[in-house]
């Protein structure tokens, strides 16, 4: 499926502990013409997949199963892999926003996500 020698199709890693949401994000990303290199549901899994696939963009849910949240994973991935991280959060609370800003995110999307929001965010992150 993945051919490193092929034209550089941007890789996107999707991190969300809700399968249906992750899957629908994946469908939308593929529809945009990008490659979904993996779907993770925990911070640990996300970091491992990021190391393995070095994605250009990570769509990161803030609330994750396990003892580490999406911000923990994003900081690790940002520092170790250098991927752009777009947070997807259900909360607009100041505490969550402050937590997200610790990672200098490439974008923040608030649920519910609709229409062109996702496309715009990913295209902006990829520059």
């Amino acid at each position, binding site marked *: 499926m993945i051919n490193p020698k092929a034209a550089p199709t941007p890789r996107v890693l999707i991190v969300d502990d809700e399968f249906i949401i992750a899957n629908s994000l994946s469908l*939308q990303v593929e529809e945009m013409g990008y490659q979904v290199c993996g779907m993770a549901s925990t911070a640990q899994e996300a970091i491992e997949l990021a190391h393995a696939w070095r994605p250009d963009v990570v769509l990161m849910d803030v609330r994750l199963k396990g003892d580490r949240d999406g911000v923990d994973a994003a900081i690790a991935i940002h520092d170790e892999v250098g991927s752009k991280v777009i947070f997807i959060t259900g909360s607009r*609370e100041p505490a969550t926003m402050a937590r997200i800003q610790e990672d200098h995110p490439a974008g923040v999307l608030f*649920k519910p996500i609709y229409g062109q929001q996702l496309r715009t965010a990913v295209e902006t992150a990829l520059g």
Partner: protein
Amino acid sequence: MTLWDWMATPPGLTPHGFCLTWAPGLLGLHAMSDGVTALAYFSIPLALARIVDQRRDLEYRWIAWLFGAFILACGLTHVMSIYTLWVPAYGIEGLIKLVTALLSIATAAILWPMIPRVVALPSPTELRELNSRLSATVVEQARTADLLRQSEARARDVNLELERRVAERTSELSATNARLVEALAQQAAAEETRRESDVRLRLAMEGARLGVFEMDIAGNRGRLDTRAADMTGVGLPADAWLRLDGPELTAWVSHVHPDDLAVRDAAEAALRAGSQETVQMEYRARRADGTWVWLTHWRAVVDRDPATGKATRAIGLMLDTSDRAQAEVALRAALVQRDLLLREVYHRVKNNLQIIDGLLLMQAGAVKDPVARQALSGLRSRIYALGLVHAQLMASANLETFDIAPFLQELTHNIVAGAADSEVRLTVDASPLEVDLDFAVPVGLLVTELITNSLRHAFPSGRGSIQVTLAHREPGEVVLTVSDDGRGAAATDRPGVGSTIVQGLAKQLSAKLSVVDKPGHTTIMVMPTPEIP
């Protein structure tokens, strides 16, 4: 011989005339002289009797009677001298002489001692003099009496005046007295009222379990009553004046929770400076047994220095509010818990809507029929509207209401932006309006439906503009307008799900729905302003 014979005609004796030898000249001389003497003597007692009878005021009247008797006796001796010239009745003559002698002796014996007393009797000259003096005195007395009468008249006048003034003064005094009595009654009533309010105050203090802290700031001393002393819980003496900066009160302040000292100090400073009439402070204090109490402490200025305005006396009321403070802490915790739970619920609803959206998206990918795809796409926009309402609620401070204006902005922009390949311009002009879930959900769905209609049917060229306005009209009425400048008669003339939704939700909102078709298409809804509790 009888005694009478012996006295009247003693035998052997001769009449006195015989001694005179019956010489007619001698006999006549004796008889005549004795007769005249006797007559004179008999007349004197008569004169005396008359005098005594006329002069009733004479002193020693009995002397006159004695003289009368003695002279009468003398007269009788002379009569007997005549009788014995011819009859030798020497016994009777002797007896009469004896009586005369006895009367004479008695008179003489009584007269001598009487001399000083009779001499002492005032003489007529003296009496005249006395009388004249008396007359003068009488005149003088009359004059004095006259003066006295005048003086009495004046005195009577003065007395009348005095009485009048006394009456006047008495009446004034009565009035004053009445006023005084009334004032006393009022004072008594006021005293009664004061006592009653004292009792009420005491009852209120007891009932409310209020402690009293008196502050004599000028005198640098303070006093707690029993309840206040108990409240502090560190064994402070009750009803005793303590120095405000003395060891007992300083020790007590050291029991105040360090976090609450600033509050307490600020209130204390404001009160002392006189910048506030009353202050209230709440603080925790550690009792001797190690437990903490919440105390609410009110203080009010009673007296202040007229020059500086600083408080010189203050009264404080203390209340142990530990129960209330604990209840408040519990309530706050419960409220925080409630907010957390509500946010969680909104979050989960939103997340589930996102999952449904995901499912629809996945389903749409498997559907080839364009009509079915469009129907699924329509469902997605409706679900988005529902999710966005919950996102607003999560972000609202009270978790119940939010301003619908930014919601309408975000909703309509994302729906318009979500329509692929369109160059439709959107203008939103929404007045701020605080709404709850029951208003926001139908309005959100309505607007979604109307905009989706316009996007699908109004602009065959893919170009045009849509305008959304929300305005307050009459008090209690808002007007929502969704209009486009497209070809008109777009959707509502075609019975379908969209039309049913619009009609039904308008009814649910008690909105008057009107449509203006051509130019463009305009839907106007006039509805009552939502009532926010």
